[in-house]
């Protein structure tokens, strides 16, 4: 039976997902921000939205059940 550890799986998932977005971006005629500070802001957003979030979710999910994890995942304060 196949197995990929949680962080590795998250890394592969979002790496391949970002490749799809790159293709979509090029096809749609979008470009990277030309200001360095904009790029840094977006990269920092990526660290919060993708790295931190997925690291917490994937490791958390591997330690508890899907049902319980999905309840806690949605305990977000917004």
């Amino acid at each position, binding site marked *: *039976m*196949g*197995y*990929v*550890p*949680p*962080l*590795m*799986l*998250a*890394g*592969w*998932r*979002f*790496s391949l*997902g*970002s490749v*799809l*977005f*790159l293709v*979509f971006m090029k096809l*749609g005629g*979008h470009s*990277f*921000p030309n200001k360095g500070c*904009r790029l840094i802001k*977006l*990269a*920092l*957003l*990526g*660290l*919060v*939205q*993708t*790295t*931190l979030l*997925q*690291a*917490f*979710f994937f*490791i*958390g*999910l*591997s*330690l*508890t059940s*899907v*049902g*319980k*994890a*999905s*309840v*806690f*995942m*949605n*305990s*977000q*304060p*917004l």
Partner: protein
Amino acid sequence: MVFATELISFNVSDLLGALLTSLGALSWSVATLWAKNLMKEDSLITVNTVQMLAGAVPLVALGYAFEGMERVVITGQVFYLLAFLVVVCTFLPYLLWYKVLHANPAAIISSFNFLAVIFGIVLGILVLGEPLAPVLFVGAAFVSLGIYFVNRS
């Protein structure tokens, strides 16, 4: 509600999992508000591409550093499930999420995230054969009511 079930079947691993997923939820909220602000200057596709690219690289590095390749067992099923995860669970939902976030108030659309609770519980039972805890369904009912009231207001 969920902590009530934790007390019935107390387990340190479960509690640590709950703590980590809650921290993930906090990251999600911070990122949602921040992304909404950043999308005023860049297109949603650009925001999505850059943030995902920048976020994925450290995840791969962390995976290699802490988990190592020796535990990885690649089979045809892994390949198929990864492709599903990438296209159906990553590319399409992120694209839709940012599109909806761009056009609507963050608090309103975030309330729909709570539907994941219901899907998570039902699929956990149906697909993974997880134990049926009636108290989780009571919690899911409250979640549904919450979505109703947020959208009504």
